[in-house]
């Protein structure tokens, strides 16, 4: 997807708070609909965005209390044809070590007191490409959905 250019781009900032994930979801879904993504894919984008926001709300401990949303429509510049929606969810929190993440398994989850930790697995299952960058400067989740 590296040959694609940015046809349209928007950046928005939200205050990290319970249920702000629904506002962020609404913005991402609106952009997805505007480029005529199918209804099912729009809903998948919405669910992935909700999960990325919840991870930020619960784990970022961002001192500025903010979440940054980037929405970019990628496509062929010559044809002005949207091909991919790129969503970036970013916080300036404490970050985490991605290499220590263990993907959850339902059979273990059922026997465990802790039943959480599904967010990234859900995002990866719903989106076409996911990249997580995390460190002392915060966390950035970049998700691509092909039209």
């Amino acid at each position, binding site marked *: 997807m590296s040959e694609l250019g940015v046809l349209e781009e928007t950046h928005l900032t939200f205050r990290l708070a*319970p*249920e702000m*994930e*629904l506002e962020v*979801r609404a913005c991402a879904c609106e952009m997805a609909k505007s480029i005529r993504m199918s209804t*099912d894919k729009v*809903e*998948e984008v*919405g*669910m992935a965005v*909700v*999960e990325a926001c*919840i991870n930020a709300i619960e784990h970022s401990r961002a001192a500025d209390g903010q979440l940054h949303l980037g929405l970019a429509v990628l496509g062929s510049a010559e044809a002005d044809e949207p091909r991919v929606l790129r969503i970036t969810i970013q916080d300036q929190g404490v970050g985490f070590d991605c290499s220590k993440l263990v993907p*959850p*398994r*339902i*059979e273990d*989850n*059922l026997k465990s007191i802790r*039943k*959480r930790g*599904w*967010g990234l*697995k*859900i995002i990866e*299952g*719903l989106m076409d490409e996911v990249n997580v960058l995390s460190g002392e400067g915060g966390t950035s989740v970049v998700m691509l959905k092909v039209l």
Partner: protein
Amino acid sequence: MTEGLKLKVERRDGLAVIYTDGYINNQGGEEIAEAAYGLLDEGFRTLLLNLAGTKIVNSIGISILIEIIEKMIEVEGRLSFCDLTPTIEKTFHIMGLAQYASIFPDEQAAVTGLQAGAS
């Protein structure tokens, strides 16, 4: 803030159906769990969760549904789902919930399937 999840419960012969309307987040999940555990206390061992009125769930809400599934396994009961949006159904499959809870396309199919399973 969204309005909280609304629930409606229908008790039938050996089957209780919980209808949800709204967002299943942590609070919504807890409300479903309270309803489900209440039905278990009443003696119901077959529960059907009809999600026709739910378009958005999150993983915190689903983790509480996993707790209910665990409880149902403990009491040799059965929790099933019907009327899921394609995205919620896909999410349940990604998580592997379908191995432990049946998913039916609609309530009629669920009732038929659960009756066949009980006989």
